């Protein structure tokens, strides 16, 4: 079954190549981020990242060794399993700087919220592949997707992890818009939004309003998020055309960027490699997303198509939010940059996604 000639012939090496390039970019950037300036203090973090890539590769291979259409049947179970893990993390998760996002399995810990993104994509792909139609989804047909998205949304918000929660909603919304919402339903939804938002705003207490405003505009928090963003912009801007050179990023060296190896990794990259480097990375990401959409284009089966679109949406939003945030365009939320930010769960999830895309692509001529 696995070694059908057609599968090997249709293997999408380009996609794998793009993922590999981004992985290298990530390793190099992380190496720089954790090596503090002239002291050359090296953390074993970048070694850990390499190990995660390795594990990710294994996960990826597993992800294309079976027919992806089986996921159509397993989607509900995977989703329920994911929800259980999310509930579990709320009770048994490790506390790290005030939030519980990780479950530990012996020497390693992982974030269930990363996996649930994939689970939601799967279950929405399953649902939409059955219900999508020319006219678009009606309000009633939207009930299931909304529930399926909101349950993990609230569980993740409780952790608290606002970034991943918002990401989840954006991915679901993108997939939903992709399969078209009935015009009338869309109209109703928008009216509801326009009416409820002022009402909700009215009911919020003063300090809650402040927090939302500060969130939307980091400038209002000059000692906290506002400071991080301005340091990030300085880092990026100071890269200019050619960058300061590998390991020569001063903002980075002076530890003025918080979370350099995770959320602000792009700033490190832009500072050291300048516009040339940063623009190339952006182009590689764009190519990756377009490649995903291309795979969707070539797929004959609705489930596979919507699944690919969902994965593309996930990569797109993470790239847009993360890079947009470090450049000061988007409010400050912690979302990892795919393949580049440090983080085992993110790497593994992304590699599984690549694996699934390869899976869909490999089997586009098989019609069982």
């Amino acid at each position, binding site marked *: 079954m696995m070694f059908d000639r057609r599968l090997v012939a249709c293997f999408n090496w380009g996609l794998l190549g793009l993922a590999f390039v981004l992985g290298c970019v990530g390793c190099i950037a992380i190496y720089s981020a954790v090596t503090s300036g002239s002291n050359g203090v090296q953390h074993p973090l970048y070694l850990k990242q390499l190990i995660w890539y390795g594990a990710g590769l294994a996960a990826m291979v597993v992800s294309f060794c079976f027919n992806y259409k089986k996921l159509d049947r397993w989607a509900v179970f995977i989703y329920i399993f994911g929800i259980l893990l999310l509930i579990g993390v709320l009770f048994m998760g490790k506390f790290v700087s005030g939030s519980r996002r990780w479950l530990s399995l012996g020497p390693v810990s992982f974030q269930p919220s990363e996996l649930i993104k994939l689970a939601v994509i799967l279950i929405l792909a399953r649902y939409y592949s059955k219900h999508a139609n020319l006219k678009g989804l009606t309000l009633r047909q939207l009930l299931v997707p909304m529930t399926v998205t909101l349950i993990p949304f609230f569980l993740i918000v409780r952790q608290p992890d606002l970034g991943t929660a918002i990401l989840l909603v954006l991915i679901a919304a993108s997939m939903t818009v992709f399969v078209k919402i009935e015009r009338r339903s869309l109209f109703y939804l928008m009216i509801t939004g326009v009416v409820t938002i002022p009402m909700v705003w009215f009911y919020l207490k003063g300090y809650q309003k402040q927090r939302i405003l500060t969130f939307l505009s980091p400038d209002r928090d000059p000692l906290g998020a506002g400071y991080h963003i301005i340091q990030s912009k300085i*880092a990026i801007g100071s890269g200019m055309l050619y960058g300061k050179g590998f390991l020569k990023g001063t903002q980075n060296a002076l530890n003025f960027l918080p979370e350099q190896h995770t959320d602000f990794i792009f700033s490190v990259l832009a500072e050291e490699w300048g*516009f040339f480097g940063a623009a190339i990375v952006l182009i590689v990401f764009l190519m990756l997303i377009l490649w995903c959409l291309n795979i969707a284009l070539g797929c004959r089966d609705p489930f596979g198509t919507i699944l690919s679109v969902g994965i593309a949406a996930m990569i797109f939003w993470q790239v847009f939010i993360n890079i947009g945030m470090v450049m000061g365009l988007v409010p400050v939320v912690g979302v990892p940059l795919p393949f580049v930010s440090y983080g085992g769960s993110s790497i593994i999830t992304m590699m599984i996604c690549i694996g699934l895309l390869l899976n869909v692509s490999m089997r586009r001529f098989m019609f069982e």
Partner: protein
Amino acid sequence: MKKYFETLDIDWYKQRLTGAIFCAMVAFVILFLRLFHLQLVAGENYRRLSENNCIRLQYTDPPRGLIYDRHGVLLVENRPSFDLSIILNDAKPVDETIRKLTELIRTTPDEIYGRVSQIKGAASYNQLILKQDIGRESLAAIEARKYDLPGIAIGVKSRRYYVNENSAAHLIGYLGEINSEELKSGDYKGFRRGDSIGKFGIEKACEGPLRGERGGSQVEVDATGRMIRALKKVDEKPGANIYLTIDRRIQMRAEELLEGKAGAVVAVSPRTGEVIAMASSPSFNPNAFVSGIAHKEWQALISNPQRPMENKAIQGEYPPGSVYKIVTAIAGLEEGVIDENSSFFCPGFYSFGNRVFRCWEKRGHGTMDVVSAIEASCDVFFYQTGQKLGVDRLAWYAKACGLGSPTGVALDHEAPGLIPTANWKLMRTGVPWQAGETLSVAIGQGYDLVTPIQMACLTAAVANGGKRFRPSIVKKVETVDGRLVEATVPEIVGLIPATPRTLALVKKGLWRVVNGERGTARRVRIEDIDISGKTGTAQVCSRKVEKMKREGDVETHFKSHAWFVAFAPSDNPEIALCVLIEHGEHGSTTAGPIARELIKTYFEGGTSENVIKAQGDRSLDEG
């Protein structure tokens, strides 16, 4: 149908995908444009800013709230102190700068290098404190030569100053540097290493309001680290001022009276539950903690056998002795095992089982009813009352009177005391309760443990007709500009389970303790103030002491504790108090006079509550 459906879908999907591709490209164009702007259009400016990290954060700490007594008399304030700090990266050449520094102020190069070596390279842009609290001369010397000393800065810091030193030290508490456990616990969000927080007493209990909110600004600095301009600012919010319920005059008098002894005094208002004085002796000087207490001093404090760091008023658990008879009397009357006419004969002892329980009056009191038994503190009467009640019923009444659990005063480390029940003893020791032990407990010996504040609150409740208030120590919280943030409202936490008749009888007995012929506290009597009270002598450990007594030689730390609880005036009381002297032997001789003097001070100058209130309002206006 299905095939048609599928082919139709494929074109439809193609359409949707084209839309998706378009959206993705638009979004990336936005990102590109932004990147272009940051790096190529504004790149040079950012490059300049990144050099020497021109944009930094400067925090301003708000002044900590002050603490006053109920009349607005200042108890705790802040005074300015000057800290000398250095930013290594700006202080180039470092050796030169340090040499010049040592010429100006009293310090050695080794001292400075010692401090510097503690920090690794990454913090070369942070302010490193070289010396705290430098005097005004050093301040002047350095300020005069400022331009010769790059990278050196003097920060003004507020230092806590406890005006009356040892007075009310346990109540007010002290500050200390936050430690890593406290930082990790999540209780102190937004606090950083090096911050001072309240560690004890009111400083800790009211940390939130006292602290205020830190402010700061983003500043742009030049190549030597000097500020060019402030970019954005967040105003600090100064700490709120706390007005305690205590009256400094009464507090200091209580401490004066406790001088040289180990013990505690708690005075509360029976009308509101406000704590008028809370003194614990021996005490300590919180000013010693302000700059970090010296190790030797700390060792001396914690190894002192009289435990100066302990707030005996709320942490000290002692057997109540005869003051417990108030509870036994209430229990006996309410349960109907005795009434106002019941009488027992006291020959000086009481035989129970195979033991003889002695009365403190060896010659015996003769026939006693409940009022005279309280007056003369007859053990035999209460042995028999206790025996009829049994330990569990007695325990129920004790707990209903607030004993055996914390009073809920807003301070840390309050001890609950102990009221034994048959069940408790079985669980604790595996040995069932012996009926004879009830007799000991009935007169406040044996397993019973109470704290001075519990007894003060109990006395206040008996005095006011049965209402048990939560003792409050904060009267009100005000912002620096005088706006009221919060005022404490008296809170009733329970009622004494006694009818007015029962209480009237008990109060009659308590009145006779001071004013009656056979009262055990006749020497507490004052001419123009009507006091009621109860003495107590709590044995430390019976059998050993008995032996020593017989041999006529009791060492101090085996002497009994002396108790005295009182309220005045007997009708419509304004003050209720509890005095405990560790190893003071007899309540009447040691504790009683302290209560008397304190009550005298309270009423001195014809001060009644209304006058005090009027005085208080006036002094706040003036203050």
